[in-house]
């Protein structure tokens, strides 16, 4: 049964990969890719990154360069024309990116018969016919400690932040100041972050994030401090140790490596981050964050 869900996830990611190849020149939204294989927009990108081994943007960019490499060899089109098709506006930018991937300049690549093939962190490469022979999604990796936890609904006071992820601190400061001065940050208070958008693929100014603190039923929303109820239901939980800037790696591992083998599906609501210590007085490598990914009820 677990094998069959892994198969199912592989098939769904494959659908997305084929869609990407077929629409390599389009600039589509993240949601458009997620819809192709019925992934929730909240989780799609992390599943993609975990299974494919690179972000969606990296993947599209690399495929465009691989296509350019094929065209250098097989067509007589000018290099600047091929550069433009790959999404680069200048010869220099194209050359730099091409060299980084293939190890030589585009003109050298075109001349040298022995130059061929491109390495990649994923086994998925561009093919002219759009086929996927020897598809190699990332396998295994080291095992991950994941527990399934039932979370009762939590009533939280929150401040919404829209903007770069590394500026969420300001929302936390306002929230904690307003609650703290009234004696509302006591033992048992939980500090929770809700990140609606993946910082790896969303424009910084559009990232939505709620800084949340658990409150009693009698707490009343006021001004920029809102109240909402979050959680409720089963979650897959794993602990991330270290700086917040590396959370993306743990998300990718949980959703792209553990989840496809778990036999479980995700609910279409954002994951939660429970912060166990305060960044103000903790070295970044000692920060502890529990990541909660919402699960559909087990079948």
């Amino acid at each position: 049964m677990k094998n069959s869900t892994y198969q199912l996830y592989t098939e769904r990611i494959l659908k997305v990969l084929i869609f990407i190849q077929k629409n390599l020149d389009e600039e589509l939204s993240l949601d458009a890719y997620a819809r192709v294989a019925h992934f929730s927009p909240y989780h799609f990108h992390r599943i993609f990154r975990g299974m494919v081994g690179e972000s969606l943007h990296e993947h599209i960019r690399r495929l465009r360069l691989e296509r350019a490499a094929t065209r250098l060899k097989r067509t007589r089109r000018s290099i600047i024309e091929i550069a433009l098709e790959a999404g680069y506006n200048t010869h220099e930018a194209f050359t730099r990116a091409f060299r980084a991937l293939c190890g030589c300049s585009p003109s050298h690549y075109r001349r040298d018969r022995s130059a061929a093939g491109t390495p990649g962190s994923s086994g998925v490469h561009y093919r002219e016919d759009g086929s996927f022979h020897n598809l190699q999604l990332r396998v295994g990796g080291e095992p991950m400690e994941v527990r399934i936890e039932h979370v009762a609904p939590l009533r939280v006071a929150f401040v919404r932040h829209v903007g770069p992820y590394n500026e969420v601190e300001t929302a936390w400061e306002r929230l904690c100041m307003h609650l703290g001065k009234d004696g509302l940050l006591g033992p048992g208070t939980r500090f929770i972050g809700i990140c609606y958008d993946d910082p790896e693929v969303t424009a910084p100014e559009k990232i939505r994030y709620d800084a949340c603190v658990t409150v009693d039923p009698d707490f009343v929303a006021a001004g920029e401090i809102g109240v909402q109820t979050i959680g409720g239901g089963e979650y897959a939980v794993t602990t991330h140790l270290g700086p917040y800037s590396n959370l993306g790696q743990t998300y990718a591992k949980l959703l792209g490596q553990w989840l496809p083998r778990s036999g479980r599906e995700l609910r279409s609501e954002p994951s939660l981050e429970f912060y166990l210590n305060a960044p103000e007085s903790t070295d970044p490598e000692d920060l502890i964050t529990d990541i909660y990914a919402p699960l559909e009820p087990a079948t």
Partner: protein
Amino acid sequence: MASTEKIDLFKQHKDQYVAAKKPVLVTMDEATYLTITGRGAPGGPEFTDRIGALYGVAFTVKMTRKFAGRQDFAIGKLETQWWLDGDSHDFGRVPRERWNWRLMIRTPPGVAPRELEDAARKLLAKGKAPAAEQVKLESLTEGPCVQMLHVGPYAEEGRTIEAMRTFAESQGLTLHGRHHEIYLSDPRRVPPEKLKTILRLPVRKQEFRREVD
């Protein structure tokens, strides 16, 4: 917002919070802490309850100051002094239920007792941290101390303490006073073998018994 910069005592007193893998000598001048005292096994219900009260008061004092535009400060790491009744230092032989402790958070000297009372009143009014009233403001002057980083379970501090004792004796010093720990890691998720704790043991000149003839 306050124009004054936030105080971070941990950074300001880097020399006092050295986490060296070998024993070093440090001098502790007078330092102010928010404290709460108790007795019982580390990690037991009373211990956990008092930690909550201490942090509750620390947060409330800090945020009240911040809201009023007064000097803000970073809440430091949790520290604990341990001692046994009488003169004993043999923690191995005394049941953990009879260990005495003082939980402490380093605090800028400008914080006044009135701010603590105010914080405790607010927390109690919200039904939080019943022990908040027991949090005190205390000054300690530990003087010369040997300090060393212990990595591993708390129960294995013995070998680190031995290294510290040997070092102290090589300097003509002897250990005395209360065993002091500064917690760099959080035992809730960090595996025991990776826990980092600074141990601080006050020392004084070894007393030689003069041969009287």
